[in-house]
């Protein structure tokens, strides 16, 4: 018995020592793309996408098949995840040092993590603003993936948040798109009297509330203050505009939705379905969701879908021409064995022709490629939304991807509490301040 215990302990200690070296993260080294590298059209490229939804999944499948046909020695393996699952999947792959050759990324601190850990290839020499490829893409979208003066991301499409509304329902009630936040609240009262839900809102996932608040913060807090607060080393979150924006958000919940607790118990997909079924008059949505809200098959027809930017409150002290949104795109893993091929594939994905397919129905994802959107085959609301994005003075990033994880988590949980009525705006800000202090 004595021997067996000793042997077992020795084996366990050896396994433990071995495991410690195997299981833990391996520091990656910075890798720069070589603009002159020759592309070897052989081998397999793995791609982690955020197009797992049924409606979007066929897009990259088609693009990959087309690329494989052009280059028979290449095989593209797609790992298609949804908006929620891609976050967990990516981190699991990072923790196990198994990032695919090409992977989806948001801008802000999300993408910054890959740069900080040298997990992403520095693409400055191939996608920088003065390069051949860079000139084919919307400059602001390329700029959004810039970290420490270098470019790491390949923007695929532009995204921003707008209030979609049912034109017929508005016309029946004699309403027009509100110009101020106060007008929006009064429109909600009119709509509610007609027994229709003014705004369908699902916050079970917690991030939908962040989108309302992000837009209101852009209106109520000066841009310079916001950007200082997004940086963990300078964050203070003491501007009075924060509490003002949260109070406006609470007013919107009370006046325009079915009530805070109901909102927290409903998923965002149920909410968009309610709008699409014409059971609600408005739904706050991303431009990439316009084609899900209204289509030939839904009760809400494409011609009945209108939109406006969430109107700014009177006397707002921030930037009233800002729109909340950001481009979304891809990065190339520094551990990829075939970086030139990965770059070549992404050049193909972001070509004008593929961009036009992506921008058109049924995908409706406005391409970040210049000329990658053809008005003739696009949802007119997406076309008009793109013009709004182009005229915005500032693109307010998503609060849950621009902030460090602990601050993002504080925003998510405390905004659910504010929505449900168990926290005040001041208490929410206290939570955020505490999280920011512990993230320094």
């Amino acid at each position, binding site marked *: 018995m004595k*021997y*067996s215990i000793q042997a*077992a302990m020795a*084996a*366990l200690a050896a*396994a*433990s020592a071995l*495991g*410690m070296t195997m*299981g*833990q*993260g*391996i*520091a*990656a080294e910075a890798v720069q793309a070589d603009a002159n590298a020759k592309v070897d059209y052989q081998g397999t490229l793995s791609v982690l996408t955020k197009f797992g939804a049924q409606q979007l999944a066929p897009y990259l499948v088609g693009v990959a098949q087309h690329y494989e046909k052009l280059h028979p020695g290449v095989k593209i393996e797609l790992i298609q995840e949804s908006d929620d699952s891609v*976050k*967990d999947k990516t*981190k*699991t792959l*990072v*923790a196990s040092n198994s990032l695919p050759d090409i992977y989806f990324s948001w801008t802000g601190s999300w993408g910054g*993590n*890959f740069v*900080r*850990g*040298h*997990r992403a290839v520095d693409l400055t020499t191939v996608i920088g603003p003065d390069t051949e490829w860079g000139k084919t893409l919307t400059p602001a979208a390329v700029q959004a993936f810039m970290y420490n003066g270098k470019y790491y991301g390949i923007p695929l499409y532009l995204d921003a948040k707008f209030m979609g509304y049912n034109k017929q329902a508005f016309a029946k009630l004699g309403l027009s798109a509100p110009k101020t936040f106060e007008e929006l609240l009064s429109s909600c009262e009119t709509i509610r009297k007609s027994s229709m839900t003014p705004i369908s809102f699902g*916050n*079970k*996932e*917690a991030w939908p509330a962040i989108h309302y608040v992000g837009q209101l913060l852009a209106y109520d807090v000066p841009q310079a203050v916001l950007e200082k607060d997004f940086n963990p080393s300078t964050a203070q979150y003491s501007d009075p505009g924060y509490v003002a924006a949260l109070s406006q958000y609470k007013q919107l919940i009370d006046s325009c939705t*079915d*009530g*805070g*607790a*109901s*909102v*927290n*118990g*409903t*998923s965002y997909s*149920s909410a968009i379905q309610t709008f699409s079924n014409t059971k609600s008059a408005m739904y706050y949505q991303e431009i990439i969701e316009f084609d899900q809200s209204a289509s030939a098959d839904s009760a809400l027809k494409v011609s009945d879908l209108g939109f406006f930017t969430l109107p700014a409150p009177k006397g707002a002290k921030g930037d009233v021409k800002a729109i909340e949104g950001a481009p979304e795109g891809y990065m190339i893993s520094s551990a990829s064995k075939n970086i030139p091929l990965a770059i070549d594939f992404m050049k193909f994905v972001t070509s004008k022709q593929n961009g036009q397919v992506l921008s058109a129905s049924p995908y409706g994802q406005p391409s970040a490629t210049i000329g990658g959107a053809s008005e003739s085959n696009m949802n007119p609301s997406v076309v008009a939304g793109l013009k709004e994005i182009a005229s915005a003075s500032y693109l307010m990033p998503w609060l849950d991807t621009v902030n460090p*994880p*602990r601050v993002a*988590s504080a925003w998510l*949980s*405390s905004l*659910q*509490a504010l*929505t*449900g009525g*168990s*926290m005040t705006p001041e208490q929410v800000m206290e939570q955020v301040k505490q999280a920011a202090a512990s993230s320094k």
Partner: protein
Amino acid sequence: MANSGLARMEGAALSNAAGEPAAKAGRPFRHWSSLRWVAVAVILVGWFVYYPIVDNFIVSTTDEDIFTGETTNIGLANYERLLHDPVVWVALWNNTLYALISIIFQVGGAFVLAALIEGLGSERQRRFWRAIYFIPSAISITITGLLFYFIYQPDIGLLNAGLRRIGLEQLIQPWLGSEHTAIYAIIAMSQWQGFGYSTLLFAIAIQKIPRDLYDAAVMDGAGPLRRLWSVTLPLTREMTGLMIIVTITGAFQVFNEVMVMTAGGPNNRSQVLGTWLYQQGFIQNNFGYGAAIAAVIFAVTMITGAAQLWYTRRRRIEL
């Protein structure tokens, strides 16, 4: 060869039975040679079961940045942080609540139901009711979670519609959206799903009890309740003990139900240790802290299991 092998085995048995000195003389050789046969299993179990437990404890004493691969040893700081994390206490309470309610329904309730079903006269009826109660257990937890999400839906959900129809509007709730009801709604769904499985296990245990014990009890004038209390209950004690262990450990490892239905919200009020561990590790990048939460789950389930096993063995009844 076979005969000589048998003879060796018999010899070994005899020497064991004959006394300690003989057994001790041959033990080291037999011990090491027998290890060869179980070595593969020992290595596999050690690598996949015990090594992760040890490694989890090591990780729990570090602060690891998965993106840079940097690991800092911080001793027991993650455990100290656990004590001051209010969400951990909410999660621990929710797990405890889960365990208590599950013991009432999935152990107590399932035992009574199994006794009722096994008391039915016709085998066809017994089979029918066993199947009826078992069906929910055959449905995937993710599908059940989605099904109940729609049942609990505030506006069009079946539950609120039913309450409205029978005139109990005052009880209508946004079940998953309210901080006060979310965890209870999840636990209720879990009972619906797990109840049939426990009932089936109790039914099997009851079937093993010799009929003549019941016949004797009847002859002694025992009624149904007395037979349940004095015959069925003591003779299913091992199964009851096992079910309590399984229920408690299951309650402290619960994850899927909560992730599918609320993801721990609203405002972290339905977090359980498993989802908070996940949130810390995979959302907030605090893998060390997540490992510390995992160590707490391990300790709770280990202690509960050991205590229950000890108690059950003390009171075992041999037939």
